[in-house]
C-alpha cells in the first residue's frame, strides 16, 4: 500500500548531522581553526570578501570553514549575514593613488615613476608541486631582499593623462550617490557606477570567461594592463555631526586599470580608453577580468557596434551574480512533481497523436 511521503523534518535534521561530520573529517586530525584559514588561505578569504561584499577576513574565514571550502557557498553565507546589517554611513572615495603598494606592475612601460614592483605573485613560480609542503613543520622562509616602497607611487593613467592620450572621466555633475545594488534592484539601462558595482560582486569564473571571450573576437578589444596594483589604502569617513574626516582603518585592495585602443568617434578624437577593476584583498584575476568586461560594456557609450555577449549589459549583469545563478540552477533539485506530471500528460497525448497519424515511410529520403 502506498503511504504519502512524511518525515521531511527528520531528514533535514539528519542531513545537518551528516554535513557536520563530513566537514569535520577524520577526528584523529586536529581541527582547522578560523585563524589558520584567515592566515594560510588568504586568497580564498580575499575572494570571499570581494564577492561577499564584506571586508572582514575573520568572518570570511569562518564562512570558508563552515562551507567546507566551497567558496561560492561561503560567499552566500557572508552575503546573507550582511543583508540585514544596518548601514552606519558612507566612506569617502578611497584614493588608490596614495596606496603604499606591495605589488605594482605595468605592461605598458618598461620603467616608470615608482618603478615596477613584483611583490607576492604566483606569476613566475614554476608550477611544480612542492613536496616540501607535504612535510609538516613548515619552512622558515627568509624575508625578501630589496627595497620596500615606502611612499605612494603615481598611477600610470595619470602619467598618460598629461599628454591627453587617455580619456578623462570626471565625476558627473554634482557627483550623485551611486545606486546601492544591495538595496535597489538592478534596472536597465544601468549606468557605469551600477555596472561596476555589479561586476565587483560578480562571480570570478563568470567574469573570467566573459573577459576571455573579448580576447577571442567576441568584442573589439585591444587591451593592455596599464597598471595592476596591490596594497593598503586608508578608509575615511566624514560624519555629518563632526564635519571633518576621520580615518577608520586600512583595507587591502587590488586595482586594475586596463588601457584600450579607441579609434575615435564623431565627437571624440582617437585616444586610449579605460576599463576598471577593483577587488578587496589580493584578487588579480578578478580585477583584471572585471576591467576587461567593464570596457566591453562601454561599447554603446563609445559608439562601438554591440555584437557580442560581453558587450551586452543585460546579458552580463543579469547573469554575473553567483548567488542568483547557483540558487536558480540548483533549485532544479527541488521537487517538480506537479509540473512534471503536467508535462507527462502532455507528452503522452502528443505521442498518442503522433502514433495515430499515418507514418512516413522510414526509407523516404529526408
Amino acid at each position: 500500500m502506498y503511504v504519502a511521503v512524511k518525515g521531511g523534518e527528520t531528514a533535514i535534521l539528519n542531513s545537518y548531522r551528516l554535513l557536520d561530520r563530513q566537514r569535520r573529517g577524520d577526528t584523529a586530525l586536529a581541527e582547522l581553526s578560523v585563524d589558520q584559514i584567515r592566515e594560510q588561505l588568504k586568497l580564498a578569504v580575499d575572494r570571499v570578501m570581494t564577492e561577499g561584499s564584506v571586508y572582514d577576513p575573520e568572518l570570511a574565514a569562518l564562512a570558508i570553514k563552515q562551507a567546507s571550502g566551497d567558496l561560492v557557498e561561503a560567499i552566500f553565507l557572508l552575503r546573507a549575514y550582511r543583508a540585514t546589517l544596518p548601514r552606519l554611513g558612507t566612506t569617502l572615495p578611497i584614493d588608490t593613488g596614495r596606496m603604499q603598494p606591495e605589488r605594482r606592475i605595468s605592461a605598458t612601460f618598461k620603467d616608470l615613476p615608482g618603478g615596477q614592483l613584483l611583490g607576492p605573485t604566483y606569476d613566475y613560480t614554476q608550477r611544480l608541486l612542492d613536496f616540501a609542503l607535504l612535510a609538516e613543520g613548515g619552512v622558515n622562509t627568509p624575508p625578501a631582499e630589496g627595497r620596500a616602497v615606502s611612499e605612494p607611487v603615481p598611477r600610470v593613467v595619470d602619467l598618460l593623462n598629461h599628454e591627453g592620450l587617455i580619456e578623462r572621466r570626471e565625476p558627473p555633475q554634482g557627483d550623485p550617490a551611486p545606486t546601492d545594488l544591495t538595496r535597489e534592484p538592478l534596472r536597465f539601462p544601468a549606468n557605469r557606477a551600477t555596472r561596476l558595482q555589479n561586476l565587483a560582486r560578480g562571480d570570478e569564473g563568470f567574469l573570467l570567461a566573459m573577459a576571455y571571450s573579448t580576447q577571442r573576437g567576441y568584442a573589439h578589444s585591444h587591451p593592455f594592463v596599464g597598471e595592476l596594483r596591490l596594497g593598503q589604502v586608508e578608509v575615511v569617513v566624514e560624519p555629518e555631526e563632526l564635519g571633518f574626516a576621520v580615518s577608520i582603518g586600512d583595507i587591502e585592495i587590488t586595482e586594475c586599470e586596463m588601457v584600450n585602443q579607441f579609434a575615435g568617434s564623431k565627437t571624440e578624437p582617437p585616444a586610449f580608453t579605460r576599463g576598471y577593476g577593483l577587488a578587496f584583498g589580493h584578487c588579480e584575476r578578478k580585477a583584471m577580468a572585471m576591467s576587461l568586461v567593464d570596457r566591453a560594456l562601454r561599447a554603446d557609450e563609445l559608439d562601438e557596434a554591440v555584437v557580442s555577449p560581453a558587450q551586452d549589459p543585460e546579458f552580463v549583469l543579469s547573469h554575473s551574480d553567483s548567488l542568483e545563478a547557483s540558487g536558480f540552477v540548483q533549485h532544479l533539485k527541488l521537487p517538480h512533481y506537479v509540473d512534471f506530471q503536467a508535462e507527462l500528460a502532455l507528452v503522452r497525448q502528443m505521442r498518442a497523436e503522433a502514433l495515430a497519424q499515418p507514418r512516413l515511410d522510414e526509407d523516404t529520403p529526408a
Partner: protein
Amino acid sequence: MNARTDDDLLQPSEATAGVNFAYLDERTKRMIRRAILKAVAIPGHQVPFGSREMPLPYGWGTGGIQVTAAILGRDDTLKVIDQGSDDTVNAVNIRRFFQRTAGVATTTRTPEASVIQTRHRIPETPLREGQVIVYQVPVPEPMQRLEPRETETRTLHALAEYGLMHVKLYEDIARHGHIATTYDYPVMVNGRYLMAPSPIPKFDNPKMHMNPALQLFGAGREKRIYAVPPYTTVESLAFDDHPFEVQRWDTPCALCGATDTFLDEVITDDKGGRLHVCSDSDHCQERQAAGHTGAGA
C-alpha cells in the same frame, strides 16, 4: 495579515535572539510592504523591489519568504506547501524558518491558515476572504522565454502589446493541434496585464479568477512583486476556437477517491505499476478522515 505597525519598529523578537521577528528588519519590511501596496493597486503589474539576500538560496522561495515575512503578524497562522504538500522537504524547511524566526502558529489545514505560502499549487479547498496566498515565483516575466530583455518586455507591458504570447500559443496549435503549455500558463489580469501565475499547473488557473483571497507573488532572484487583489478577473489566454482547458484524469485518487483534484502519479514498482494520488495532501487527508476511500487505500 496582521502586520506590525511603527510602534514596534526595531523591537527585538523573543523567538530567536538577535534576529528580528520574521527575520527581516522592519525597514526592509516597510520597503516590501510599499511594493505590495503598489502591486495591489495595479493588479498583475510587476513591481521591482530591493530583494534581500536571504539565508535560503535564490530560486528556493526567497521572494515568497520575503513577502510572507513582510506581512506576517504574531496572530497569524501559517501554512506552507510545496507541490501541494505540507510535507515536502522545502515546505518543511520554510515552515521551520518562520517557526524559528517568528514563532507563529503553523497549520497544515487550509481553512485554518491566515497566510499560505505556496510553490507550484493552489490548495483544492477554496480560499475565503481574509486569507492571503503567497506564491513563490521563479520567473515573473511571462514573456521572458520569448524575449529575454527586460527593457523590451517592460515596453510591451506598457503598451499592453501581447501579440508575442498570442503568436506563441497560435504556433503551438499550428504544430500540435492544441496549446502545449501545461504549467505557468499565461493569464490576463483585470483585463490589462499579462501575468505569469508561477509554475502552478494550468489545472489551478481557474481558481485564481475572482478569488476572495488576496494573492501575492514574490520573485526574490528577479526582484519583483506582483498581486491579484480579491475578486479580480484572471483569464487564461485562449482562442475562440481553442478554448482554455484544464487537465483531467481517467482514474480517481487512490487514497480518497476524489475525481476533481490534481493527481500526482506515483511509481510503485519496477513493473510499470502506478498509482494516482492527490497532490494536495491536506485535502486528501481531510477527505479520508471524512470517510472517503480510494481503490489503493
